[in-house]
């Protein structure tokens, strides 16, 4: 057993973990943040993507102890306290960018990490930004539309 400190969605936590625990298990099992999905478990599909210190990581390939002092954002951290959706989430709904929904949390976090660094990306830049996130349902076009729309919403002054 080991104890680590980390910040998840703005909240500080001090958590006991097993040394061999993965970050995705810490999020899902210790913090009950079930929005982070496990797809392939080997870093290929991107379903478990989260933002750790500003970078997108696949949380199935990060050990929990590596998150010591890290600042983490999961999909649960995006909506406001009053339940208002983040502009990226709203754009996904408006554009029909979600079908089965399994890739959606990781997709939205990859989009956020992209837009945080590049507020007005081209369609090709958006496709590069989400190329680590596999989607089997949508064919991606509506996801790219949604991220383009989210960029405009954010520029107009979302959160």
């Amino acid at each position: 057993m080991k104890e680590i400190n980390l910040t998840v969605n703005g909240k500080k936590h001090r958590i006991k973990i097993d040394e061999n625990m993965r970050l995705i298990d810490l999020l899902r099992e210790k913090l009950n943040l079930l929005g982070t999905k496990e797809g392939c478990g080997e870093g290929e599909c991107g379903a478990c993507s989260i933002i750790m210190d500003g970078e997108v990581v696949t949380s199935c390939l990060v050990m929990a102890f590596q998150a010591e002092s890290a600042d983490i954002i999961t999909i649960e951290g995006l909506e406001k306290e009053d339940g208002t959706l983040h502009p990226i989430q709203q754009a996904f709904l408006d554009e029909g960018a979600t079908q089965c929904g399994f890739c959606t949390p990781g997709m939205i976090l990859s989009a956020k990490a992209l837009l945080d660094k590049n507020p007005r990306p081209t369609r090709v830049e958006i496709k590069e930004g989400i190329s680590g996130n596999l989607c089997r349902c949508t064919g991606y076009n509506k996801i790219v539309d949604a991220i383009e729309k989210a960029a405009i919403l954010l520029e107009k002054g979302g959160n």
Partner: protein
Amino acid sequence: MKKRGKGVGIIFYGTGYGNGFPDISKAEAELQDDGKVAIYVGATEVGQGAKTVMTQIAAEALGLKVEDIIFINEDTMVTPDSGTAAASRQSYNTGNAIKKAAEALKALIVDKAVDKMKLNTNIGLKVENGNVFVKTFPSRKISFKEIAEDYKENPLKVEEEFIAQTTEMDEETGQGAPYWPYTFSACGVEIEVDTETGIVEVIDGVLAQDVGKALNPKLVEGQMEGGFAMGMGYGIFENLNLKKGKMKNNSFTNYIIPTALDMPDIKNVIVEDPESTAPYGAKGIGEPVMIPVAPAILNAIHDAIGVRITETPVTPDKILKALK
């Protein structure tokens, strides 16, 4: 060297189980205390939008808003059998069953309204926004909620079923009409073949799908774009690599499916030609949208390099072998 080519694929597809197999969907409609209507179906939502279009169908048939339909599905404890979410059959089959159930419940509500309003007949009555009223005397009305008050213990509920018309093919001759309805689609692509690496890139695409009637165009487009990506994967990427019955490519490292970078911005063409036996004319499209894509790509490869490849997926090794 990079060589470009264009190709087209055109298909038709019979939806439903077909070939005489019983293709049955059941649906129940129940008036709630608050005047809303609950629809119970065993249909499964897997992201295709079944819940959305089926709620729309019920709302349309009952003259209610979609917010006033309580859609209950998938829970086999409380729902009747609506068959599988397969064979592109749910919008057509279960959609028809829902429309029948909603219309039957509406007729029952109207009958109860006639009694309660002490009218002579149901002729000239209209149902709109959860009210039954006399068309020529609109203030003479009663709401679904007021009618429901009389049935709190035993709510008004109906069950209907829809059975698709299919006949078995003649085993000897292969003749018959095994499916109904059929749907049609066409795909055009432009591709680029890298003759050094054998890599095929799909750079542009257009997909036209006959949908009967698009109950929800955005969902139809979602199915079309998804189908295009799946068809593209089938055509040039996805190889299970079966060896003695075992999948060798059993992870995303070697079983390659399209990423956002592989998928071109395609143009969707929704073709509407309402089907007379379908709910508001809508046919299923879940599977047909992917079928013309791989043939279109293989035709485009032929156009680009002059070699006809007849085995999918057309992976780079096959292109290089074909070019030798």
